[in-house]
């Protein structure tokens, strides 16, 4: 069976949730083969988790380099693994890093890229990726006609798990990095991890827009999110006004979410915002403007003052649960 390469995301000896999802997607197409870039000895620590997540082969690119090069080691490792494995496809997360790696790799391997796939299938022996176009206005299925398909996959779009593997084959790669084309990462500043569900994977998202009016008022959004067990989002207008941090931005130039429930508070519903959330299964909105475009896509909308309706909604939800 052909191998399908998956770039492993890992921090402090733990593989990322996205990696487990990608290995499962890989299993639909062939034999999952994990590609790990790590400091010397680091790959060993991950092998148990990778085997449990379905990796039948683990390619390792380890180095002692004190210098942290930006993404070129990952590109080199995938190119070396592709030469060794002649894979059927290469899967990457549809993240900023994933898209950059995909770009360099595509040129290096002369291969086509399918970006931000929400589904992957083996269709009559062909690898086909499903993409959401114009924020969900269209759905399209694509295949790659040049080289090995390089597919970046939207997180949490596919949720099954691959069967665990007993003894994965471990192969060391000789993956050379060219320092002349490699920027250096001087320092890393991760955002603090909060208690709420991660935005892009959440089943419930409660978002605030410019109508929320201030950073202080966003606690209203947070309280409703907590009552519903959801993540907090913010429109671009709210982020640009300083009401909430940018990593919570939902929309064309923020995160695209597709939850079971999306609650839009004080959000007008401009196309830019809708492109990031209109595939949500159920959409409800509270806005004082009856002509707000958000009401065109809401399953239930309340025209009213969000400062009175939102706390009342929180109360009503709590009463129902109690």
């Amino acid at each position, binding site marked *: 069976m052909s191998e399908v390469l998956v770039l492993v995301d890992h921090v402090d000896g733990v593989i990322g949730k996205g990696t487990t999802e990608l290995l499962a997607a890989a299993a639909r197409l062939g034999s999952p083969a994990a590609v790990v870039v790590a400091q010397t000895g680091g790959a060993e620590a991950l092998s148990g988790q990778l085997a449990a997540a379905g990796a039948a082969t683990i390619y390792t690119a380890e180095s002692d380099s004190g210098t942290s090069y930006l993404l070129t080691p990952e590109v080199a490792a995938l190119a070396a693994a592709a030469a060794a494995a002649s894979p059927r496809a290469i899967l990457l997360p549809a993240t*900023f890093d994933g898209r950059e790696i995909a770009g360099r790799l595509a040129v290096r391997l002369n291969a086509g890229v399918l970006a931000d796939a929400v589904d992957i299938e083996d269709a009559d022996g062909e690898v086909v990726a499903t993409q959401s176009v114009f924020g969900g206005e*269209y759905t*399209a*299925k694509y*295949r790659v006609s040049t080289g090995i398909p390089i597919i970046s996959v939207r997180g949490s779009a596919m949720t099954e798990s691959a069967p665990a593997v007993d003894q994965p084959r471990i192969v060391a790669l000789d993956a050379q990095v060219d320092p002349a084309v490699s*920027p250096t990462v001087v320092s890393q500043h991760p955002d603090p991890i909060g208690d709420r569900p991660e935005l892009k994977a959440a089943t419930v998202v409660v978002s605030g827009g410019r109508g929320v009016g201030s950073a202080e008022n966003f606690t209203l959004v947070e309280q409703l999110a907590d009552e519903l067990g959801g993540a907090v989002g913010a429109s671009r207008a709210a982020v640009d006004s300083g009401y909430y941090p940018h990593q919570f931005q939902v929309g064309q*130039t923020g995160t695209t979410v597709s939850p079971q429930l999306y609650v839009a508070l004080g959000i007008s519903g401009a196309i830019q915002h809708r492109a990031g959330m209109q595939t949500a299964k159920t959409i409800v909105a509270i806005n004082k403007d009856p002509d707000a475009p958000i009401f065109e896509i809401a399953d239930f909308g309340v*025209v009213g003052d969000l400062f009175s309706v939102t706390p009342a*909604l929180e109360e009503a939800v709590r009463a129902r649960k109690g």
Partner: protein
Amino acid sequence: MDIAVLVKQVPDTYGERRMDMSDWTLDRDASDAVIDEIDAKAVEVALQLTEKHGGEVTVVTMGPARATETLRKALSMGAHKAVHVLDDAIAGSCALQTSAVLAAALRQVGADLVVAGNEATDGRTGSVPAMIAERLGLPAVTSVRSLEVDGSTLTAERVVESGYSEVTSTLPALVSINEKIAEPRYPNFKGIMAAKSKPVTTLSAADLGLDPSTLGLAAASTQIVSGAPRPPKDAGTTVTDDGTGAQQLADFLAGEHLL
């Protein structure tokens, strides 16, 4: 330092955007065409750098004839020169082909720094800047929210989903910017008038040494299998709050088994 900025004319994201369902290419006539917002910011970043360090800004676009409007907009902001790659053979090109064309144009421009937007609002692969960097043998720093140049070193803050990092690179290099980096200046009257006489070089695929048969839809690296518009959604219910709006909404959510 001489800077090349990649700009793209795209369907207006505030308007209706359509796919041509006969060949699944972008229906560029369906809506107004504008400079992609992120690219106006890229021009701004380049202008701020040349104002500080000297040098010239050349804007480069690949697009149909009316893409010259986008070049004029950038020239009105203060860019010095423009290059327009115009060739019918290019229509329907994929990201990989696009990067080959733009890289060829950039080799002719010859800049110390290439600035691009992180992602076009129509194509949205977000991979073209990295593809170009690979073709040109340049280091790339993508998704940048701040950028400084000191001699032949570039320092940037690079934003990813989980936070940001501080990154340095030698020059020449390519960077892609995110939308938070800068607000683009409005062209003033003097700038608009001056733009009319700034040089715009038009190049065909052959001028770039590219074989037209390797470009365009038929030779693209990705091909459509099938596509469909989103099924129309049933109209929802909207109520005006009379004090019971919240309760009605809660009842709705309960009815949908969302509570």
